[in-house]
């Protein structure tokens, strides 16, 4: 009956909710007790059971609003629920009456305050009994809270310290910050609630913006439901039933009877033959030692392997190295400077040391700096030892090996063995005589065939004849006041004494009255023989005629005059002296009259070339071959040889020079070696030796001058194998140029002497040279107005 009473009581409570909130507040023990009572009364009234369950559920449901109510009522009920009063007593009190219940509440209320005070006044120690039975005070550990004053306060933090905030209830602020500014009271909940209430939030409002549309994002009903389900930890899918009935794959029922009535086969009860066979195979293998049990290899075997214990070269057989194999070069042995205590002269001085230290590691010639250590104990370790050995290793397998043939020969042996200058003597070495007298440059000079006289002509328009070995001026004639004497040439041959002079547009033929009268007479005869001839066979087509010069000149020894009309720059006699060729190189000269051949005996002038020479510009100079009827004509870049008897072109030489200034033909080479040799000088500083049979290109190209070469000349007699060239740098260079009779060997050219003496005046040094006909002497005409004899 007690249980039914309880039940009744519960029912009563549910009915009038207002009356007993404290009782219904529903503590677990009470509920369990309730269940127990329910279980106990299970047998008697089942029908009531459901009802009671429902009732309990209803109480559970209603407990929430009950609590809400109690909250609204005040803090009292909360305090009551925390009370240490047993449920049993409550139940008993609840059985008595309502007023009692209230009484309990009041006691609970009254009990609250002393409790709080007790907490404040409670001593911060506990008292225990120690072993002797005396009191022992155990203090609680002091928990230094985070808001201790020692802590740094933020700028907006309250600085009022550990006092109740209720002191500030009457003020609009709640304290002061660290700067002494008032911290205002934040808005109260009520005000916020009022504000929020005033705003109406639409359903599905999120406060977000849909990035795709730019409109505010609002959730629809479905999505809200989904969210709700997610929030409730439910399966969000619609129509999902978590409590579906199971469908079995196999039946869970076991049948009593077997499906087949066949008896067990025999093989299930006898050992397998096949297995026995296989086992026997293994057994046999084990017996025979084919299968060995696993044994881990021993550790000790390694050391023995390292020691070589047989002679690998027991039956050695030498094998020649492969031809392409390059053995690694051995490192060179250390030198004196690598010693730990080297001789003092090997030690670097300050400058060298600094240079070594400043240099990049790759740039250093030696990888170490010679250092002196007074004794062995002071020698430090060498830092780069490992690195050097490593680099050696790298060299051994990475560096390409190339066999370089090192020329271990004396450099002297490379030098050609030249005959010493002593053997090649005589040749001119020193300046013997200086012929002074010309004003301005001396343009040309010539030594007469007898070797006694020297004729010279210069810018002052005079022709002077000097005694060669004394330097005395014997004869002089002024042929022009404004034009320079370009060329003076003696007629070869000792039977006459005739000097050809080219001044401006004219060529004069003179017989200087200085030789003995017989010779002078013979010379005049040679010159005068042509007058009759020209008058007797006068033809109209003769382009120009020879005339007698004025009396004043003829008194001075000038006996014939040819007016070429153009400036002749070179005059060259044929070896017999009957012909001479003049060349007018000026570009304005018509090509037909640039080269003229004059016959002395007939006073005849011919122009052999009607058309201009092809290629290489205007003609520069021309010479007759010393023994054959060949005329060599040089224009700027080539030299041509014409056969005069057949009137045909023999050969074209291409010296490779830009502008040939002069050339000369070896006097005797055609007789000695059968081929002609020729030297040419050019304004582009080259001296070129040609062997005409060898090649149209030069056999030797010599470039020893700093300035243009003006004149080149072989020694006219075959006696001395000498030739010389004169240059604008003021030097005359003398060479030994021997043409040998042996057909197989080429000419031997040896530089002999540089004759320095002429001063360079206005970029002109030596303008002309001429050899003495018999002696190894040379005469040079300088731009400084002097002539010099070198011997």
């Amino acid at each position, binding site marked *: 009956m007690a249980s039914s009473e309880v039940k009744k009581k519960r029912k009563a409570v549910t009915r009038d909710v207002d009356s007993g909130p404290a009782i219904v507040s529903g503590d677990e023990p009470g509920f369990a007790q309730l269940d127990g009572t329910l279980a106990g009364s299970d047998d008697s009234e089942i029908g009531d059971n459901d009802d009671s369950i429902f009732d309990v559920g209803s109480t559970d449901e209603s407990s929430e609003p009950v609590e809400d109510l109690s909250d609204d009522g005040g803090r009292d009920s909360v305090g009551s629920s925390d009370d240490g009063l047993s449920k049993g007593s409550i139940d008993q009190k609840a059985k008595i009456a309502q007023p009692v219940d209230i009484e309990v509440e009041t006691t609970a209320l009254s009990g609250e305050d002393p409790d709080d005070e007790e907490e404040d006044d409670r001593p911060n120690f506990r008292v225990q009994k120690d072993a002797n039975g005396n009191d022992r005070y155990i203090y609680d550990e002091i928990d230094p809270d985070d808001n201790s004053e020692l802590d740094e306060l933020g700028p907006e933090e309250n600085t009022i310290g550990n006092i109740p905030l209720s002191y500030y209830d009457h003020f609009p602020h709640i304290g002061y910050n660290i700067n002494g500014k008032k911290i205002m009271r934040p808005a109260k909940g009520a005000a916020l609630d009022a504000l929020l209430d005033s705003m109406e939030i639409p359903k599905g409002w999120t406060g977000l913006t849909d990035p795709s549309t730019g409109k505010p994002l609002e959730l629809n009903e479905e999505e809200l439901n989904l969210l709700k389900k997610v929030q409730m930890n439910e399966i969000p899918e619609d129509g999902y039933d978590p409590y579906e009935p199971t469908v079995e794959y196999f039946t869970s029922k076991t049948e009593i009877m077997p499906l087949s009535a066949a008896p067990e086969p025999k093989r299930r009860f006898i050992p397998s033959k096949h297995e026995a066979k296989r086992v026997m195979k293994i057994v046999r293998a084990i017996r025979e030692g084919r299968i060995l049990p696993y044994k881990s290899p021993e550790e000790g075997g390694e050391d023995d392997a*390292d020691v*070589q214990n047989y002679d690998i*070269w027991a039956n050695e*057989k030498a094998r020649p190295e492969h031809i392409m194999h390059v053995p690694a070069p051995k490192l060179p042995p250390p030198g004196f400077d690598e010693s*730990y205590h080297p001789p003092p002269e090997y030690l670097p001085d300050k400058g060298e040391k600094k240079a070594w230290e400043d240099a990049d590691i790759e740039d250093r010639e030696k990888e170490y700096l010679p250092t002196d250590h007074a004794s062995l104990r002071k020698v430090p370790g060498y830092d780069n030892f490992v690195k050097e050995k490593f680099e*050696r290793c790298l060299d051994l397998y990475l560096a390409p090996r190339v066999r370089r043939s090192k020329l271990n020969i004396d*450099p002297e042996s490379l030098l050609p063995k030249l005959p010493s200058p002593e053997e090649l003597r005589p040749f001119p070495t*020193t300046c013997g005589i200086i012929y002074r007298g010309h004003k301005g440059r001396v343009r040309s000079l010539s030594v007469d065939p007898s070797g006694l006289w020297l004729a010279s002509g210069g810018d002052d328009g005079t022709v002077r004849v000097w005694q060669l070995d004394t330097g005395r001026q014997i004869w002089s004639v002024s042929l022009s006041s404004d034009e320079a004497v370009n060329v003076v040439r003696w007629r070869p041959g000792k039977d006459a004494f005739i000097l050809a002079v080219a001044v401006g547009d004219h060529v004069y033929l003179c017989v200087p009255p200085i030789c003995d009268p017989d010779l002078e007479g013979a010379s005049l005869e040679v010159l005068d023989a042509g007058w009759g001839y020209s008058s007797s066979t006068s033809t109209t087509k003769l382009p120009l005629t020879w005339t007698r010069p004025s009396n004043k000149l003829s008194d001075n020894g000038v006996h014939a005059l040819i007016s070429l009309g153009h400036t002749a720059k070179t005059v060259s006699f044929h070896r017999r002296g009957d012909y001479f060729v003049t060349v007018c190189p000026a570009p304005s000269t018509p090509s037909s009259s640039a080269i003229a051949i004059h016959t002395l005996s007939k006073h005849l002038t011919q122009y052999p070339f009607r058309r201009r020479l092809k290629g290489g510009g205007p003609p520069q100079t021309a010479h007759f071959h010393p023994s054959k009827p060949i005329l060599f004509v040089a224009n700027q870049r080539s030299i041509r040889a014409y056969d005069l008897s057949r009137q045909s072109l023999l050969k074209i030489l291409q010296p490779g020079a830009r502008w040939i200034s002069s050339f000369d033909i070896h006097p005797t080479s055609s007789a000695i070696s059968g081929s002609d040799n020729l030297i040419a000088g050019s304004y582009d500083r080259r001296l070129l030796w040609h062997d005409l049979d060898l090649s149209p290109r030069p056999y030797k190209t010599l470039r020893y001058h700093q300035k243009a070469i003006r004149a080149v000349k072989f020694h006219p007699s075959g006696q001395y194998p000498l030739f010389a060239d004169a240059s604008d740098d003021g030097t005359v260079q003398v060479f030994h140029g021997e043409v040998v009779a042996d057909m197989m060997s080429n000419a031997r050219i040896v530089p002999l002497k540089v004759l320095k003496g002429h001063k360079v005046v206005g970029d002109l040094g030596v303008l002309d040279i001429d050899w003495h006909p018999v002696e190894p002497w040379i005469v040079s005409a300088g731009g400084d107005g002097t002539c010099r004899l070198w011997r």
Partner: protein
Amino acid sequence: MGKIKKRGTSGQAKNYITRTQAVRKLQISLPDFRRLCIFKGIYPREPRNNKKASKTSSQATTFYYTKDIQYLLHEPLLAKFREQKALSKKIARSLGRNEVNDAVRLEKYGTPKITLDHIIRERYPTFVDAVRDLDDALSLLFLFANLPSTSTVPSQVIARCQRLCHEFEHYLITSNSLRKSFLSIKGIYYQATIQGQDVMWLVPYRFVQKATQDVDYRIMGTFVDFYSTLLGFVNFRLYTSIGLVYPPKFNAERDERGAELGAFTLEGRAVGDGLENGDSLKTIANGHAQTTNPVEVQRQLEQVVQLEDSEQDQENDNQAGKEENDDALDKFETAGPEADTLAQPDLDSNQTASLFASFTFYISREAPRHPIEFLLRAFGCRRIGWDPVLGEGAYTNDEVDGRITHQVVDRPSLPESSSLGESGEQGQNVDSNSRTLRPGMRVPGRTYIQPQWVWDCINAGRLLRPDLYAPGATLPPHLSPWVQAAPGQYDPRASLAEQELDGEAQQAREESRNDGQEDDASSSDVESSEDGSVDGRMDIAGSDNGEDEVDEVPEEEDFAGFEDEEAGGVGSGNEHEDERSQHQKELEAEAAGLPFSSTPDSGKPATGRIGTEAKKRALKKQKEEEELERRKMMMSRKKRKLFEKMQYSNSKRDAEAEKLRSKRRKLERAS
């Protein structure tokens, strides 16, 4: 018409193969290729024409001979490398499956063993070939023997190198084939003659080696693998060639106690008579001197007596040998300087064996024990004692032992007075086995020398005066024994006067004198030049008379024309000419590096003489130069270039020698 040849099918294009192509052809990784190349001694080549050899771009690449690579294709090592690669894959797989035990087992037992024996035989078909290539091997192995063990250089490798090196040194000691040694700033160079081949190697000083970042120990390790195999076989051959058993017995305990060379016991191979006389069982070290066993001490004493007897015998022999010493090689001296000198054998093993044979050495504790011990033993010394701190195996550790004849000391000078006689017993330790003197004490009757004495004696091939090498003395310079005097090179052994070019010393003297006088000279120059312009003609005429020999000189030519000028009556150019010639002279003198003074009559006849001599020299030099120019003019351009190149290296050598000479001159003048 013949078949058109395709490009890149013959010639250089086919003979050379780039490294990438080679690696691809061999189907191995680049590090494996590197190892293979190191083992097989295959090195890149420089094609004669880079462009023809490379089929594609003209980028700089390394080329190998195609034949070389083809030859590598058949190498058995390649199979090993592939096995190793397969194994590493297996290990990686089992590690990936977390089967650590499997991985360990595979790594431990599955690693294919690489043997290099066949490669040694292949690369060095004869023993002499191997000896010829021993330089680098020894240098590297000695370095590794002195390295600390790290993860990259395992201790087994170091131990193996040490063992091989010590074995090799033992051979050198027994066969007396060490010839020369040199203390350099890098380390100690040794040279031995084995089977007629000179082998030179470098051993570092015993310091911790500084290793820089850019040293790859894997490459060096590959070399060490190869070289240690090589040296093992060489050692075997060397030991068996002198009748010893290889490997010698190695006593690990004694090695632990620092015996080094003494840890090995050499055994003779002939069993029958070997054990009888006890000589065949040859313990190099005399460690038994330390044992306290009285029987052994007695035996040792007897031995010493015997040794002394034998020494006397030897001395007698030597004296006798001096009279009828026909076996020894005679020294050939060339009579003339133009003759070629032939290389002569400098030392034979008999000489080396007897250099220090009669001495007992004691090595003080500050001297480097190992190299000194090795050298002394290799040159015949049998009794070497040292301080007990230097390790085991000494003949005696007793510094005051009376048998010691020489003591190697590397300390500042010892005071003469503090000899043992005065200080008596207080300088000694109590322990009679290893008595040590107080520092600064001397035992009378003993030669004290610095370590360099040992080296210099060995290089000189005879005993040198020990007083020059006394402790604290300034040592004579230590010279490399391998530098031969070559013409044009500076030789510190010869005196300065022998090497100077003619006139060099005088010139230097003048220079040094002129350093002081320079100011005076320059001021007097101005005056004298003015004088010269007034009556310079006479002056120069006078100077011409003074030096008749110089008259041929071309620069003097101008003056030959005096008479002619007078004859011509033109004197205007005369003065000008004189000035010019004077200027010319000054220039000449300047070119010759001489102080120019145009007035030879400036009051000092001595300087005048010197001046003329200098002038003569300068003129001679100029003449020579002119001659050289003349000859060079006739050379072809190619030859001239070659000549100038040769001249360049020669002149560099000459400049170096000249610099050294001038330094020495200065030093000699200062002293």
